[in-house]
């Protein structure tokens, strides 16, 4: 692509799922209906669709608007052309994810789900092979998981994985920041502004509270389920990355001990919403479920299986089935690791980073605009307003 325009942009976006994009006649119904649009000052979804239709790739890449949409589907229900604006917003998020990622893998996975499946299978096989060839002694008269898979080695693997994932994710975050803050303009922003907005990032990482305002009643319920899912996901990461020594033990603690309770909470918090999302996607009741891209399926199914095999490890271990425990443990890791490696930096899971980051960046942008707005010329033009 030469210059800021890419005439093929709308074709690209269709590959990311925005199939009915060309139907849009830019009437603006969707923008007026959208419960999120006005506060975000974006004029979306119409403006985003317009950027795509007119091939303004640079502007799209520097836009935070797609991240301000929580897919309530109100716009799609009201669109007089059945252009499915909510799906265009979704597709732009997928597109942006693939653009933030410098490796090109995200783009490959989104456009060709088969490659994503292959990648998952390869990583899964790699993990299985590691265990087949490098596992510790198998004690068969009682469950000794820490002998089979010594926790310090597993932990080391965890940390290597976490480091790699963080690297890719942060690289994406840097590209996103660089583009959305206007590239070189970013260097002129005072570091204080960046620091002052940090609490916003964490508040939104843990609560996604903007979502609660989006759309009508069903979307509120969806937010609660999503919140549950995120808490389950973060619990899982905490238990596995930080508290593994305490979590993966051979001693069977009583039921009410915190590591067991927390583990059960994480399991329920993962199984219930994923199971529910799978069912409603199959039933296609709400607009968000009208079209389900392969990436969404892979994400849901992998997460569901991770939680399921996780709880099975626990069941076999607590009830004293050594062989079953070891096997299901390997399967558990052969599902969980590829899910994390493939999905977190390169696919659907990356939004756990980009969503709060986008709100953070929007806060930074606004602070910058406010500070420059209060500066020289605005004051000269409107002394009364400044006072």
């Amino acid at each position: 692509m030469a210059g800021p325009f890419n005439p093929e942009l709308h074709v690209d976006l269709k590959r990311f799922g925005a199939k009915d994009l060309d139907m849009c006649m830019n009437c603006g119904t969707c923008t007026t209906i959208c419960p999120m649009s006005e506060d975000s000052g974006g004029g979306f979804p119409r403006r985003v669709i317009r950027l795509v239709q007119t091939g303004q790739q640079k502007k799209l890449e520097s836009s935070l608007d797609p991240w301000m949409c929580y897919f309530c589907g109100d716009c799609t229900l009201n669109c007089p052309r059945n252009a499915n604006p909510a799906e265009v917003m979704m597709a732009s998020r997928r597109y942006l994810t693939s653009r933030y990622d410098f490796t090109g893998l995200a783009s490959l996975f989104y456009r060709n789900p088969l490659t994503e499946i292959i990648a998952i299978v390869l990583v899964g096989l790699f993990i299985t092979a590691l265990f087949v060839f490098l596992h510790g002694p198998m004690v068969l008269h009682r469950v000794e998981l820490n002998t089979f898979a010594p926790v310090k080695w597993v932990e080391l693997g965890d940390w290597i994985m976490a480091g790699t994932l963080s690297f890719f994710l942060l690289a994406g975050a840097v590209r996103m920041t660089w583009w959305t803050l206007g590239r070189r303009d970013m260097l002129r922003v005072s570091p204080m502004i960046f620091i002052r907005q940090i609490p916003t990032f964490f508040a939104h990482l843990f609560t996604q509270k903007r979502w609660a305002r989006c759309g009508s009643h069903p979307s509120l319920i969806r937010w609660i389920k999503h919140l549950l899912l995120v808490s389950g996901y973060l619990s899982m990461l905490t238990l596995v990355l930080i508290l593994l020594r305490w979590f993966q033990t051979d001693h069977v603690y009583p039921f009410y001990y915190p590591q067991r309770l927390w583990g059960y909470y994480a399991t329920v918090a993962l199984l219930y919403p994923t199971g529910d999302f799978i069912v409603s996607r199959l039933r296609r009741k709400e607009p968000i479920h009208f079209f389900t891209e392969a990436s969404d399926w892979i994400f849901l199914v992998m997460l569901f299986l991770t939680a399921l095999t996780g709880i099975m490890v626990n069941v076999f271990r607590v009830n004293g089935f050594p062989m079953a425990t070891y096997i299901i443990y390997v399967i558990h890791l052969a599902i969980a690791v590829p899910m994390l490696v493939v999905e977190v930096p390169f696919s659907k899971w990356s939004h756990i980073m980009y969503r709060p980051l986008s709100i953070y960046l929007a806060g930074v942008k606004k602070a910058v605009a406010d500070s420059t707005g209060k500066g020289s010329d605005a004051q000269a033009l409107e002394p009364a307003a400044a006072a």
Partner: protein
Amino acid sequence: MVAQTGEKRYSDALVIGGGIAGLQAALDLAEQGYKVMVVEREASIGGRMISLSKVYPTLDCASCITTPKMSAAAHHENIEIMTYTEVKSIVPDGDGHLVTVTRKPTYVNADKCIGCRLCEYACDSEFADSFEQGLGATRAISVAFTNAIPQKAVLQAEYCLSCGLCLRACPTDAIEFDQQPRQEQIAAHAVIITTGFQLNGLNIKPQYSAAQSANIISPLTLERLLAPHGPYGRVLRPSDGKIPESVAFVLCSGSRDRTIGVPYCSRVCCMYSIKQAMLLAGSLPTADITIYYMDIRAFGKGYEQFYQNARAMGVNFVRGKVSHIDVAPPDDLMVHVEMTEESVDCVRRQKHDLVVLAQGMIPQWNPSGVSTVTIGEDGFVATPDLASPCATNVPGVFVAGAAAGPKDIVDTIADAGAAAMVAARYLVRCGSKESAQPGGGRSVRLELAV
């Protein structure tokens, strides 16, 4: 109970619908010497056009154009008009068609009625007048409207109290409470469908809250408000009779919208809204008038100039499709629209006293079950042959005007003329084929064409 009259009557052509299209087609055929029957469902001919105030782009008075056509047709020796009559079936029969019609009872003997309206003045039962779009009242027995043709009273049984006041008032004893529906058969060579359009209802998009406010009105209602002989004689808003200070026209509110099953453009709304805005600007000189539009489709001769004139007169044009309307208590309305042409993104909320929804045109009549004429995806009568735009799939059955798709008056009249022309050509062809048979009701011209 439906009485059957034995006699089958003949006509060269039968026109279904006595609006401007049907009248024009009938007159064009009659002038060429063919016998024409016009079947009209309502109590008067004249169709939609007779209820309009003025027409664009000339701002001529609509009745001044329609009334002469109505009376010309009514008085033409080759035209027979059957009002209050519905078509039950059209069956191909040789070259022609056997058409069965039901003549609904008017409970008034048309031969005796002299149109004095004494019955109407005597009647005690009042209800909303559909000709005035429900703004005025009419009575259970009445002449359809001031300039109706024929000027004959019709009694509407569902509103009749059977009190007998009209019986006593009528000077000619024309009222017959015991009338029954009557079926008649007409053998016609050519049939022309000119059944026109209807609007797709104010409530079709709940987002526009028309059910919650009397001040969200149909364009046909505004036509009546603007008509010199309309219900109030001036423009007042229905809820409280206030003279509106701010009027909004919402274009594409019933067309170009797949969520309501009308994906097509109704073609006339831009222009009639501009016309209505101009007329309003004349009758309410201090009112703010806003037209919310997506793109102004001023495609006809002189239309663009007309549009520019409206702009010059100070009518406010805002580009953007209104997404929803809220009622702003007590009686005002809040219109929500994205200002798609502003440099800064913004959604505007604007308060108005009166909102006119430019509803979509949908077909008035569906021939299925009556005839084998097919309809298109849009529900209008299909015209499969591009080179012969008035021909339907059934030989000898033609279509003209808005029955075949949204059209304005200018196009409808041209279309009706074209339909009359192809029907005449068809009649000539049939005539030459059937020359050996006795003429029956067929006209001189048919025999001449041999």
